[in-house]
């Protein structure tokens, strides 16, 4: 951009854009206050935080605060669970989100379309605590719906909150049920942005609905899909605390498959709150997320430059 603008014209350009910059000030201030200034506090992760001495005056302790994340026996388990669940959530969320968006887009009736959209989005607006009790209504060991159904078929009760083998499916299902509506909105808005001309031309050429979806909709959705994928990669080391903490009702026997980094940190520091150690966990998650975003973006850039974010 700079080589296009001659140095003399620069001043004029600056004035020209000034209203736009002014408009941007609230947003910039928000970013600065909310996302940049708190970076100052990151040093807590490397300190033995003392309220009396303040952030700056506390003693440096190197990586001591990170130790509990890696030395514990559960270190492997929490890392595996966090990564695999998030991968499943991201991939399934992508496939289901695109599918549902395409299906909704194919509905002709405006009213019924709005109705489906709202119904699918509704769970996204619910609190995890409420969802936990919805799930409990189905799985309760004493009067749950599933056990009553099983009983009518002569099958014995299943202790849902004691058997860990069912939980990967339950958690993935709950996550998708809750979040699919939100992902769908992104994809649907992109689909609506695709020019109708393509489809008309395809129809004239005799393309079937399936061919239209495969050859027009999906390729044109690709930039949105990739952008969302890169963004979600940054979150891969963070787990949805509400999902993993509330839905399994904190059952110890389920923890081998429900314990993630966030729930582990919460349980570890519940009894003896330690700001430095919890910041260390957050810092670690951010660093891994940052590395992943840069890596995935680099891969995307290599494959198709125009789809990369930066």
């Amino acid at each position, binding site marked *: 951009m700079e080589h296009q603008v001659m140095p003399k014209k620069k001043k004029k350009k600056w004035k020209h854009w000034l209203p736009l910059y002014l408009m941007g000030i609230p947003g910039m201030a928000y970013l600065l206050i909310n996302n940049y200034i708190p970076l100052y506090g990151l040093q807590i992760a490397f300190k033995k935080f003392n309220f009396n001495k303040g952030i700056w005056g506390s003693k440096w302790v190197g990586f001591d605060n990170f130790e509990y994340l890696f030395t514990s026996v559960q270190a492997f388990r929490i890392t595996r669970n966090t990564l695999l669940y998030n991968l499943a959530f991201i991939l399934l969320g992508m496939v289901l989100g695109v599918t549902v968006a395409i299906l909704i887009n194919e509905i002709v009736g405006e009213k019924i379309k709005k109705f489906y959209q709202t119904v699918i989005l509704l769970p996204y607006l619910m609190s995890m605590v409420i969802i936990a009790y919805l799930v409990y209504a189905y799985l309760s060991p*004493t009067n749950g719906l599933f056990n009553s159904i099983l009983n009518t078929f002569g099958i014995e009760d299943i202790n849902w909150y004691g058997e860990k083998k069912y939980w990967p499916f339950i958690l993935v299902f709950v996550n998708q049920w809750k979040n699919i509506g939100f992902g769908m909105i992104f994809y649907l808005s992109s689909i609506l942005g695709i020019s109708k001309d393509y489809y008309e031309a395809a129809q004239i050429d005799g393309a079937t609905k399936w061919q239209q979806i495969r050859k027009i909709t999906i390729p044109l959705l690709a930039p949105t899909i990739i952008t969302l994928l890169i963004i979600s990669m940054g979150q891969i080391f963070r787990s949805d605390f509400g999902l993993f903490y509330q839905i399994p009702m904190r059952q110890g026997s389920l*923890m081998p498959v429900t314990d993630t980094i966030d729930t582990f940190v919460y349980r570890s520091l519940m009894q003896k709150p330690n700001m430095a150690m919890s910041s260390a966990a957050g810092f670690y998650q951010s660093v891994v997320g940052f590395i992943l975003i840069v890596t995935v973006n680099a891969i995307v850039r290599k494959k198709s430059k125009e789809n990369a974010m930066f």
Partner: protein
Amino acid sequence: MKNMKKFLALLLALILVVSMTACGKSADKSGETGAQATKAPSTDGQTESLINFDEEPYEVAIENVTLGQEYADTAAVEAAINAITVPAINCKVKIVNYHIADHATKVSLAVAGGDKLDLINTGLTTALSTLVSDGVVISLDELLAERGKELLAKAVNLVKATTVDGEVYAVPASLYPSKANGIGYNQQMADEYGITIPENVTLEQLTAIGAKLKAANPDLYLNTQGDGSLTSLNVYYDLEAFGGDLNYGVIFDPLNSTSIVNAYESEQYKEYCKVFKNWKDLGYIPADSLTNGQNGQDVFNAGQTLYQWISVSPTSEQVVAGKGLSFTETLVPITPNELSTAAVQEFAWGITSSCDRPDKAMDFLNFLYTNAEVANLLQYGIEGTHYVKVSDNIITYPEGVNPMSIGYGRIFTQFGDTLQQFQLAPATESYYDDLKAFAAEAKPTKTLGYVFNTDNVATEIAAVASVVSEYRPVLETGMSDNVDATLAEFNAALKDAGIEKIISENQAQLDAWLAEQ
């Protein structure tokens, strides 16, 4: 574009510098005021002469830890207290009501720079040693010697339990803190089914009682462990846990022993888990308490269980009287009446490091423990509105008022010297003698005054806490199918997490402390 970048960089740098100096300032603050406090004149030793009546009255913010009541009349109580304290010690009071569930977080936030908060309940939700090593509370040695003489005289035998590294960091809020652990049972329910619960009841006897109760009414339960997050091992066995929820090792029989062992490996723990497993199989405790979200107290208060565990002392009887239950709760001790570090620290006052005037906070604290009128106001509110007199010193709730709807009250926090204060019925005038007798017969544990400093094993403590939250609730609610196998797995995981390092560190510190005594 380039100018813009420069401008942004400059702005960022500026903000960083400003925020750093701001933090620097707050760090220095306590040092300055500490100096002020020591500069105050102390010519003839009288507390009154230390008070400067020429300045504006300082407002001391004091905590009241509750179960979430809003207490609409807080301002009226403050006004009534100010009418006494401003002429006497030139000091106003602001009552800050905190829910006990948020207490630890609220205190951290307040001290890190949020709400104004001067006097806090140490030990109630966060161990005193943690508050000291995190710099949340300040040393009170000089303040007590200068401005808290009367208070110090009353608490002189107890402050050794609030001493960390040779300095006093808190003052006992309850001046008679000795207690036994035991159970409180529903007297009406017991009478109905012909059940009597003797003192020092054993788990075996309780199993027999459970059988009787279940035979008489299958809808009732003996007890419930709730979601299993709180252990009750210390109810059935006499032990010292160093405020570590069993995770720092324990001393069984702390009146005679000083050897710290791993509670989870003990025979006592195995027996305890097996009893609860048995009770669950027999239906004496609810089979779904892990997931149904009800805590033991609520179930007991609703009259669905025969007993709950509770500390047993005259002070505890007052807490029960303040609960407004629809039935009589009778307290039965199981462990001996002991005075331990934990008992003293559980209710204690500390001054925060964010307090602007520690001297005034100490003035107020000293006044609170010498002036019965202020103590009664903080503890019970205003006469006629929040309580009515039954006899000279015994009070009760006015008609139509209960502890949940009352305009002002207290739940966890103890304000003032119990012997100078009114007491709630059904206590009678003999309460004061009973309390003195109870305090006199309390036996000090061998570790009274010892505080475990956890700084060196913070990593292990975090790892152990997460293992415990995984296995212990299953074991203690009787939900494990095979107690021996689960316990073995649990102990193996604890070893990997480093529980042995915590215990040996604790023992080493205790031995060093014992050698000094």
